[in-house]
């Protein structure tokens, strides 16, 4: 990666894996998994009888079949579970068709909706997924089924990828960007171009004019928030509202979205990046039950 050749990897967010040590998966009747191979990050989620058992969250390589395996292996790590123990796998995200061991591919839109429904409960009506390279506003029903959606993938502005490039450019670690952007007395005018490519020169320009990093970050987060709010408004928002994906971890963007919308997003209970894989695992479970019924 271009970034990796640079000395400090400001863009690099923390990869993680987790499993529930108190749960014995061997008692499980249905073990289902979802693999979300996004353009920037990949996740695997394993459910045992519909309960969250394990997950992993890592960066996607340029070889998506491999990314899928890596994510799965890492989720299985230390669980004693093997891929063969998983009854049904659903692939989702950009590389969904390249998950060799998945029985079925379902779009990240349906999966994020369903994952959010699991994470936030049936009251959730509007989900904003700010993913690596696109951004989706989704309306869901109480069962977690998509009612309507709007997608912006023509532009990386307002996406994780954009934020990575920006963190790198300013030499601020991506996990710090949010808080730092809030350390301004008053909101600056937003950067006119949220385009990843031109934000660079615009930001450099602002810094040459003597803007402190905090202010530049504030301007960028504001512009990002503004873009996605447009998307949400066009779709029409209904509470409860929640944000999934990597940017949901960026308080600078989230708080600005909330301010523009005039409503609060529900506080996440789980890693917001796994929503897609989680939804996939829930679909996998449902699909297996359907199969068994029909037999």
């Amino acid at each position, binding site marked *: 990666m271009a970034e990796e050749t640079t000395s400090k990897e400001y863009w690099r967010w923390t990869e993680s894996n987790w499993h529930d040590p108190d749960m014995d998966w061997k008692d499980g009747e249905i073990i289902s998994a979802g693999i979300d191979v996004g353009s920037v990050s990949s996740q695997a989620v394993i459910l045992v009888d519909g309960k969250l058992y394990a997950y992993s969250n890592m960066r996607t390589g340029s070889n998506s079949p491999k990314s899928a395996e890596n994510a799965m292996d890492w989720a299985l790590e230390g669980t004693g579970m093997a891929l063969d123990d998983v009854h049904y796998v659903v692939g989702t995200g950009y590389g969904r068709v390249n998950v060799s061991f998945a029985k079925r591919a379902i779009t990240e839109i349906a999966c994020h909706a369903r994952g959010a429904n699991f994470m936030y409960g049936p009251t959730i009506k509007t989900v904003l997924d700010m993913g690596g390279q696109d951004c989706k506003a989704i309306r869901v029903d109480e069962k977690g089924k998509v009612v309507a959606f709007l997608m912006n993938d023509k532009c990386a502005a307002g996406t994780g990828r954009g934020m990575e490039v920006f963190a790198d450019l300013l030499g601020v670690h991506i996990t710090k960007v949010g808080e730092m952007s809030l350390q301004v007395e008053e909101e600056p005018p937003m950067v*006119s171009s949220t385009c990843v490519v031109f934000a660079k020169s615009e930001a450099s320009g602002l810094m040459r004019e003597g803007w402190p990093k905090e202010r530049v970050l504030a301007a960028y987060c504001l512009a990002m928030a503004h873009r996605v709010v*447009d998307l949400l*408004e066009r779709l029409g928002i209904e509470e409860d509202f929640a944000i999934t994906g990597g940017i949901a971890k960026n308080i600078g963007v989230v708080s600005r979205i909330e301010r523009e919308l005039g409503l609060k997003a529900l506080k996440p209970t789980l890693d917001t990046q796994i929503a897609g894989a989680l939804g996939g695992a829930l679909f996998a479970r449902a699909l297996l039950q359907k199969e068994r019924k029909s037999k």
Partner: protein
Amino acid sequence: MAKYKTAPLKSWQRAKEIRTEYYQNYAVAHEKGGLRWAGGAWTFDAIPAGLGDDVYPITSEPYGATIAFQKDFSDRCLEATERAGYARDLCAYMRNYWGSIILNEYGWVDPGEERKPFPKPDFVWQDHICCSHAKWYQVVSDLEGGIPMYCIDVSVGPYEHTTEHGLEYLVGQMHDGIEWLEKTTGRKYDDEKLIEAVNNTCRSTSAWAKVCALNQAIPAPLEEKTMYSLYVLGTLQKSSKDVADFYEELLAEVQDRVDNQIAAVENEQVRVMTDTQPPWGFLRVFRYMASKYGCVSVGSLYTFALIGNWIWDDEGNFVPRPTPQSQGLVIKDRDQALRVLAEWELSKPEWQHFYHPKYKSDMMIQIAKDWKLDGVMLHYNRGCEGLSLGIAENRLAILDSGFPVMVFEGNMGDEREFDEARTTARIDSFMESLDVPKLN
């Protein structure tokens, strides 16, 4: 030491008054039992005039531009429109106008007063030549709770090929329109008022053209930035007596400036024209050109002829069109009035390029010659497909005729699509290529 003497334009104040009264009258029309209607700058406003003197229009293009001048309000309007599901590449005037309907806030604010709610029109009276003109008002009607609309299709081909049946098609729609107006408003129609309004229309659109013709003088008595705030009156209500009278007074003053070598740009050393509407929020670009390079924009086919009426005379000169009334014609009845009005408007220069860019290229090249230009600046205007139509071909034709052309991209009413810094940088390059020395 300035090259020419200059002086502020005396008529300026009166122009401001007319515009202010226009937006105020529209707002308060109902309080006096009057009527309000909405339509485009090209609509046949002379026809509703027959409904009475208390019937006030609001033309949406200049109204949209008025909003564009108020950057923050404009941003809110544009976003409100986008959020209502209307595409961002639609006419920028309309997106400003519709936004102010959706937000229910009036784009006209009297000094020191609060912004008022948007005064809903009683009906729509529009014409159609750009493929969105009538469609705009379907949206207005949707947003205004289904107000009635009537539109007249004027796209019957270029003026030089005007046919009797084409004229008949227009006049027929106009007759039907008058019946529709009577039915819709419940008012009795007054042909005398129509005749007077038609006479005013010819008078104002011809007089404005004469004013622009005077800008052939060196130094130019007017520069385009000023012309914008003058021609706009015609886009508000070309059929009104005030506007017609104003242009005739203005004509006298500008003639006086020419006679006394009073310049619009005191260091005029290079002359250009532009094309299509400017990015309204950034007219200071003209000041930049004048102060840094002594560059005067003497106008454009747009300022000359969006409302002004011109014609190719028998010697092949491009001249202000003399009114039929000035040649002794006296309108006697409704049919004749409508016929004169239709025939008069069909020669509108800004209607010709809708059929082929060659018509517009010929006029622009002639202007470049007669107004003694050094170059041409074309605004590729993302905000208006009607007037940007064929602009790339116009560019090629003007280049072929030997005039340097500079192109800049932008949007007349959506500042998000105009980059001021890069545009001035282009102007610098253009001026360099014209060997224009920087002033001071």
